[in-house]
């Protein structure tokens, strides 16, 4: 059974903190993605990676960075968290179909 896991389901951070969101997949997929989901806005792509150490910006990369040191792991980093980054963060991996993790609901105070 395919599996994408995310490090936390819920996270509360303070403005200015550095935040790490981790995602691990066990399907040997080359492509991995980070989205954020906000009411009325659907899913918006932050970054994706098509290979180890390779990354490309999505539609809303500002304020975020990513790291992919190993094929199975894709990390999203908020360098200095701000209140407008309060959101649901979804990780996915894919070959043709996307498989999603359960999501991390991040609250930045």
């Amino acid at each position: 059974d395919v599996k994408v896991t995310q490090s936390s389901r819920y996270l509360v951070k303070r403005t200015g903190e550095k935040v790490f969101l981790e995602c691990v997949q066990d399907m040997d997929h080359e492509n991995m993605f980070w989205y954020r989901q906000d009411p009325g806005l659907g899913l918006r792509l932050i970054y994706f990676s098509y290979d180890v150490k390779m990354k490309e910006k999505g539609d809303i990369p500002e304020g975020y960075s990513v790291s992919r040191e190993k094929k199975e792991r894709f990390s999203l980093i908020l360098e200095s968290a701000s209140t407008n980054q309060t959101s649901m963060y979804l990780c996915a991996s894919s070959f043709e179909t996307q498989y999603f993790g359960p999501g991390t609901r991040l609250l930045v105070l």
Partner: protein
Amino acid sequence: SQQGEEDPQALSIQEGENATMNCSYKTSINNLQWYRQNSGRGLVHLILIRSNEREKHSGRLRVTLDTSKKSSSLLITASRAADTASYFCATGSYNFNKFYFGSGTKLNVKP
């Protein structure tokens, strides 16, 4: 933007009725996929239809694709309360590197 757009935004039906959701998109695609999201959870893949296919079935799900109109529909037959969720369409690019999601249809099936 290549983003898919679902219609309607919200749909409320009785258990046993059929539910139809539509998706429109703007550019050429390799495939179109439908996903379901239960409240506060990740998305679950339902069905994929390729650009050279017109119709596909999976259990109570029927998906159609009209590439000339750049639109797709998802039909859920004999709906159940457990079908209550948000449904998203996503268009897939030819290199599988990018997917574009709409903002979803919120389906409520009343028991």
